[in-house]
């Protein structure tokens, strides 16, 4: 009798892995309304903050890599006219996101007009696991409109390292 009971207890623990979850309707509806409210507020505050902090002539720098690259990006350090403006260390998930076509915004701000020099230093591991560092600079002119620059880290499989390409857009 005791043995049967133990068996039933153990078997009850091994149900199917459930997929759908029921929740209290009223609370569920309240949570959905709240989530929608927070999302809308977040959107509106982002737009207001941007209106306040970044006038129509803002500049932004982005980083992307070749889709499916075997070269691992470790970190990037960014300077503008010799001043440090950004650093990012890539987690596995972030690097994975880049290799799937993601583009990372490294910097947004108001920069001086006229000639500017952007310098990027990147550390990476080549497909053989050897680390390396590369620095590249890019000169651009900032005018009255928005300036967007994409730093593309592309594969140079001959050298088993990255090389850089810049794409620049302006309004």
């Amino acid at each position, binding site marked *: 009798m005791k043995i049967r009971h*133990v*068996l039933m*207890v*153990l*078997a009850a623990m091994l*149900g*199917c*892995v459930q*997929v*759908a979850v*029921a*929740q209290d309707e009223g*609370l569920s509806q*309240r*949570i*959905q*309304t*709240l*989530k*929608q409210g*927070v*999302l*809308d*507020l*977040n*959107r*509106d*505050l*982002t737009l*207001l*903050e941007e*209106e*306040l*902090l970044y*006038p*129509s*002539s803002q500049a932004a720098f*982005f980083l*992307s890599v070749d*889709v499916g690259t075997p070269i691992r990006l470790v970190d990037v350090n960014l300077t503008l006219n010799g001043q440090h403006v950004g650093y990012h260390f890539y*987690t596995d998930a*972030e690097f994975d*996101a880049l290799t*799937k*076509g*993601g*583009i*990372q*915004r490294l910097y947004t701000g108001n920069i001086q*007009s*006229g000639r500017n020099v952007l310098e990027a230093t990147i550390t990476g591991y080549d497909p053989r696991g050897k680390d390396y560092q590369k620095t590249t600079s890019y000169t651009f*002119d*900032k*005018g009255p*409109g928005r300036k*967007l620059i*994409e730093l593309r880290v592309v594969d140079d499989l001959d050298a088993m390292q990255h090389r850089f*390409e810049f*794409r620049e*857009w302006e309004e």
Partner: protein
Amino acid sequence: MRRLPCRLGAMALGVLMALTSASAQESSTRLVLFEDIPLGPLPLGLEEQRYLAFGEAIFDYYSDHQFAALSGLKVNQVRGLFDEHTEYAELLLGELFVNYGLPAQAEEIFDRLLKQDILSRTRAETWLHKADLHYRQGQYGAARDILESNRLRDLKPEQQPRRQLMLANILISQGEFRAATRELDAVDPNSVAGAYAGYNIGVAMIRAGQTDTGLARLDRVAGLPPGDEEINALKDRAALAMGLTELQRQRSDQARAALLRIRADGPFSNEALMALGLANYERGAARAALPLWLELVRRNPAHESVQEAMLLAPRAYEDLGAQTQALAGYRFAAEQFRNALRDIEQAIRSVDGAGWLASLTPAQVDSRSSDPMAWLTRFGTARGAQVMYLHALFAERGFAENYRQYQQLVRLRDTLARHQRELPVLLATLSQRQQQLDGILPRIRAELVALRQQQQQLSDRTMLLAMGMPRQLDIDTPEDLADLPQLIMWQRIDALLDSGRGGSRQRDRLARLRGLLLWDIANQAPEQRQRQEQDSAALRTDAELIGLRIAALEQLVRDASLALRSDLGARLNAQKQRIDRLLADADSAINDLGQVLKNDALRVLALQRVRLGEHLAEAHLSAARLQDTSANGGRGDRP
């Protein structure tokens, strides 16, 4: 570890390629390749902005910052970058709404997309999303209708397993095992989702009475090659289910063979030891069962299998005629059960306290920087007396889902609290900037007008200089071709010759010197003209740059003028009440959901208390029975 779909990567690549080709067309018939990227700036059009904005959303999505991706897409909708015609962004937005827990908004997007004239592949993917939505809401009928229809005919091959798994799970829940098996046969059984589906169908078949087929299914899962922790735990679970089924069929040898496949250090080792002991006991080998149960007795008494072993081990001693050891075992069990009951009382008080739910969140997670939709490790670092007794609760899908929702709400509240703190800073920045601009704008406007005039003059002069430069080298005007020292020398000699001073001999020498200088000038003229042209070009560039800077300043002045006249302050102020209201709603929802979670935990603890009470009574009665038997010279009856 959650598996994020990889199709968005392909989608991002598609968008990238489409935009690259658009850029290539815009740069007038030039094929843009790696080494051939235009060096200068390109005009920032709508497609370029979409390319960057969607790339950012993809980056956030795959970096487990889904709330940031969702917010970014909503912001870019207001900016006019994304609308119902950018179906790639719509699809991502719909999926993010599903993950965020706003199914109505997701369905609205999917329905809108399906009404449009879109690619058949995109249409099929949208239908798949819609089926997924129904599936998550438990509307299996609606989901099945879509999944079995030919609306998914043009689905990409890499998306087929998702359709098949979903359909298989629905068919399992509806008891249609043959059809579910057909769907699952096409799915990689080594994948996590495939392995779970295989396990589910096996258990469901056993429950439906198709024991042999169900066991064969479970055997396939248990026999998968070793993988990550999730796969290995599922393999153990499948072997345990097989062992228990065989035990219920009273096939001890088969049960034993299945249970021996479970890892000794896995999450199901307690159950395995217990069941293995039972398998031995069932076939009359109490001596073989005893060491397994004694091993369990040394483990954590909060676990149900350990509690059962504490009663079964002395019973096995009894069967083997070791009454003294059996009595000691029952007494030990009673003491352990009393301790466990005391722990449960403490646990109940702790769960009822204020900080219990917060104590379940992994300590290393910084909720302030964490995305509200980020996937946090569940209960990984949870500590405290109550945690030992709540393992069963933590394994429940419903509790886990509610707790995930709770964590999300807490982080959304953190986001709101951050907005509440930042709003006064934004208002102060606005006020400070307006005061500053009020003071300096009139002066800057005036200075800018003067600077614009100067720049215009400079630009005209550089233009004139460039235009006035003769195309050919003309030695009749050596001043134009000489460098600075030569020019000074030339002017000095000319002055001396023109003055008429000195004798004829000196004048002859000056004339010869003039000739030599002229020869030098003529000799260096090509290089000198090249330098002059370079200097002229540099001057033009400098003038253009100054023009650019003045244009930028004019833009800043226009922005500042607009900022002074704008109602930004009022709009920012209006957010305060909105934030306060949402914070109150968040507190209320967190409180209510927290109470639901606590009630679940208290329910589990109450059940454990009842069971432990029963165990304690059984241990006492068994000990008393043994003592009576001993006093009566071994004539006691065992129940």
